[in-house]
């Protein structure tokens, strides 16, 4: 039975040859929820938009993937019904009262880059390898005025690719980093040594090496490539969860949808 299924998968894969390399461009909308207890006890949630560039090569049984993205978004606290503050200032000289609305804005800018190398296991569409991913964020607004983090993590990744119909390719992908370099440096945003002079506070935690006991992340995605010509469409859904324990717990949960195109380069394999 297993052999029959394997044969069927092989037939599907063979029906639509993969290009040797692709270049891709996509737009991504991601719902982003985070709770950084170093900064706030509240959960912040919002939508982030990203532009993504990717390059993939498939020399022989190797799969090489690179990705670069920049994102911007807004976050606001969840479960806080009315977050509008007002401040009244009396001017005794003019006798006027002025009311200033104080609406704490929050914004996030960030970027990510990834390099992944996998090797095909057998002929069933399974690849296994390593993924190195770096992610940087700067948040501004309340609380803390601004803060940010930089994380680069490394861990095993696995992918299963199949072609459910002619001209369509479905890929399921999983990454579980096991080691990381993490900088959480509110206010100074200096990734290496938070500037104690510029950080008038207690948040200068510096850069540390982290392993699974203090840093956990799981990322999954499913992408569908449509078409088999030079230009191919791309639709992908992705989600990831992060917990970084030091110096205080940081949680992040994201889920998003990506739409783009790929340009096939070189001859088909």
């Amino acid at each position, binding site marked *: 039975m297993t052999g029959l299924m394997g044969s069927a998968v092989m037939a599907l894969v063979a029906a639509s040859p993969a290009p040797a390399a692709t270049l891709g461009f996509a737009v991504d909308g991601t719902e982003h929820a985070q709770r950084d207890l170093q900064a706030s006890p509240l959960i912040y949630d919002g939508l982030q938009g990203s532009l993504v560039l990717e390059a993939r090569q498939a020399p022989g049984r190797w799969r090489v993937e690179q990705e670069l993205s920049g994102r911007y978004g807004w976050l606001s606290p969840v*479960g806080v019904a009315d977050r509008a*503050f007002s401040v009244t200032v009396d001017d*005794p*000289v*003019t006798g006027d009262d002025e009311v200033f609305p104080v609406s704490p804005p929050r914004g996030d800018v960030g970027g990510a880059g990834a390099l992944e190398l996998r090797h095909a296991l057998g002929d069933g569409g399974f690849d296994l390898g390593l993924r190195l991913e770096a992610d940087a964020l700067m948040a501004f607004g309340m609380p803390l005025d601004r803060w940010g983090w930089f994380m680069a993590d490394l861990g095993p990744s696995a992918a299963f690719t199949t072609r459910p119909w002619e001209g369509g390719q479905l890929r399921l992908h999983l990454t579980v980093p096991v080691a990381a370099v993490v900088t959480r440096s509110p206010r100074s945003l200096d990734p290496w040594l938070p500037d104690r002079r510029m950080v008038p*506070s*207690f948040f200068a935690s510096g850069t540390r090496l982290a392993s699974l006991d203090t840093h956990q992340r799981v990322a999954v995605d499913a992408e569908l490539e449509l078409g088999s010509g030079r230009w191919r469409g791309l639709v992908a859904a992705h989600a990831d969860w992060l917990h970084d324990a030091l110096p205080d717990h940081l949680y992040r949960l994201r889920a998003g949808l990506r739409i783009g195109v790929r340009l096939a380069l070189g001859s088909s394999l």
Partner: protein
Amino acid sequence: MIAAPRLAHLAPLLGGCLLGGCLLGPAAGDGAAATYDAIWADFDAHYGLFGVKPDVDWDALGESCRALLPADDANGAALFDALKCLLGPLEDNHVRVLRPGVDDGMWTPGRLEDLEVTDFSEEASASWVPDLTDGPLVRWGWLDSDLTGASDLGYLHVRTVNPNATVDAVDAAMEQLSSADGLIVDLRENGGGFAVVLEPVASHFSDEGYVYSRTRRREGEGRTDYGEWIDYRVDAGEAPFTRPFVVLTHASTVSGAELLTLALRERPQVTHVGSTTSGAMAAAVWRDAPNGWAYAVSVEDARSADLTSYEGIGVVPDIEAQSTLEETQAGVDRAIEAAVEVLRGAP
């Protein structure tokens, strides 16, 4: 109105609690008592001025003010009162509580909360400067020689030391005022800002580098355990103004503007005129309370170069001069009058 479903709301449905904890961390209480306790604990861990406020018994305050919380505090009024009880004795203008959804929802335990600043108006000060260049960051021009009885006295009002653009605005003004025989540097109605802005401003008046402030932050378990002193320096300016100048301050000279006052007071050619500054120099950070309120915590102990603390006290000028409310309303500016007297008598 139905709020759109948010990922954070859906987290519990996605198998919410995994790996020994929830996907976005354990739930936090957001009732009045939980909020009060969280704020008390945050100040306990991070407030940077316990070392200069030895009379504050934080444990006793925490206990006695918590007793003000009733079992039911639906609108937060009792919590607001309890926080005033707790934070009031700190007498710190940088400590603030923001309560959403009510008029005048910001409160500070510092002297600015109840102080009416009546000794300054833009109109009164502008009456001395007929061709005043008025911008959002600085105002500058030449004092009216008919009023001063002296020529070539300049006026520079630094409104803020917050955005970096202030540095460029001061640079441009000082380029024009560099030929003055004397200068008034007005720091009244200046709510402060950052060292990276005030230091280049101070460099315009210095032909040498020097330390103007020293700061330390909490390190260790105790409320008065601090790390090393960190020096804040002014560098020598490229073409510094070395002739006499007067710094004007009053109670609304706050925070970074007070540090700029300290920096300028280090210069030999300066006279400090006006009234006492706010007395809030330690930097503060905004924090979220579990119930969605916000509050600011002073997180350092900032002092002058000789380690004098002005927290809750303010910097006292060399020459006291301030208008009454009636004088200000009539367009009289006693501080500028006194400053002109100083500059006219300067060698």
